[in-house]
């Protein structure tokens, strides 16, 4: 009886061809190589960004100029809040204006993304924004993560 249910097995070989495997891997590899952006700046300040609900995505990564604000990392723990642009800490605020002028000259559609630590007082943020306004870098994004629901 049970023989009745036996499937006929084909006489041919049942192997998946693996010759194209390296090609597939290479394609994936190239995809990730192209999309990858290695962390280009080393953070010199501690930043833990807040959460929010009404957020938008910025698709054009190349337009973004980051400004980091947070307590400075020191060997003995953390210090006073400081501003970091690119890979250096900005000691006086007018330098921010210079940096923004430069960014805007290269890319007029620059969006300044503020990555600010949640504990920082807004007074410092306003001072930075005054500099951004002077440089006419008016497109600002307050970087946040999505609120967990």
């Amino acid at each position, binding site marked *: 009886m049970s023989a009745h249910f036996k499937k006929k097995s084909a006489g041919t070989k049942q192997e998946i061809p693996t010759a194209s495997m390296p090609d597939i891997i290479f394609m994936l*590899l190239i995809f*990730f190589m192209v999309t990858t952006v290695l962390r280009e700046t080393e953070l010199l300040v501690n930043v833990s960004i*807040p959460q929010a609900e009404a957020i938008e995505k910025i698709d054009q990564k190349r337009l973004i100029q980051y400004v980091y604000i947070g307590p400075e990392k020191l060997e003995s723990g953390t210090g006073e809040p400081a501003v970091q642009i690119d890979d250096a800490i900005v000691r006086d605020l007018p330098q921010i204006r210079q940096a923004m002028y430069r960014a805007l000259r290269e890319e007029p559609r620059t969006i300044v993304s503020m990555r600010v630590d949640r504990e920082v007082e807004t007074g410092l943020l306003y001072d930075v924004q005054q500099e951004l306004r002077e440089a006419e870098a008016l*497109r*600002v994004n307050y970087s*946040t993560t999505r609120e967990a629901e």
Partner: protein
Amino acid sequence: MPLLKKRNKRDAEIPSASMADIAFLLLIFFLVTTTINADKGIYMQLPPPLEDEVEPPEINQRNLLNVLVNADGQVLIDNEVTNIAAIRDIVKRHILNNGREPQFSTAPDKAVTSFKTKRGLSYERYIAVLDEIKSAYNEVRDEAARQEFGVTYGEYKARLDEDAEDEIAERFPLKISLAEPDPD
């Protein structure tokens, strides 16, 4: 003739069996280091720099909703004490008032929300309040898009052609003014 080298008769092929392994290793490296997600956050437009000659534009006091936050995170809206959770509703009422209540706006496209804080406020609270204001606008736009097109504002916007006018954004413009804090 003696200058001719002896030819090795063995196969001179590079073994390619390990090619896939090498590719795999590289793949895993890039998989781990990759960050595809672009930045996200609350998008705002800063006011242009002040020029001395130019007077700030006159705004009917009705159309201006003043949101003030002090260093402890206490909220004052048009001189009335409220809390952060109530901001969204008040801003929505302000936008959609259409002249009904005397303390709120005369028309949605004229409504301005001014946001001003003390310098000592923590950034986390600042974002919490800004998030509520922005959410109020998003909800108003969402409701309008649902009523007229039966989709959310995000979907409506995605469907718009490149140069078509965004009717809803035009009717409910995002007029949030980030005011400078007074020096303490």
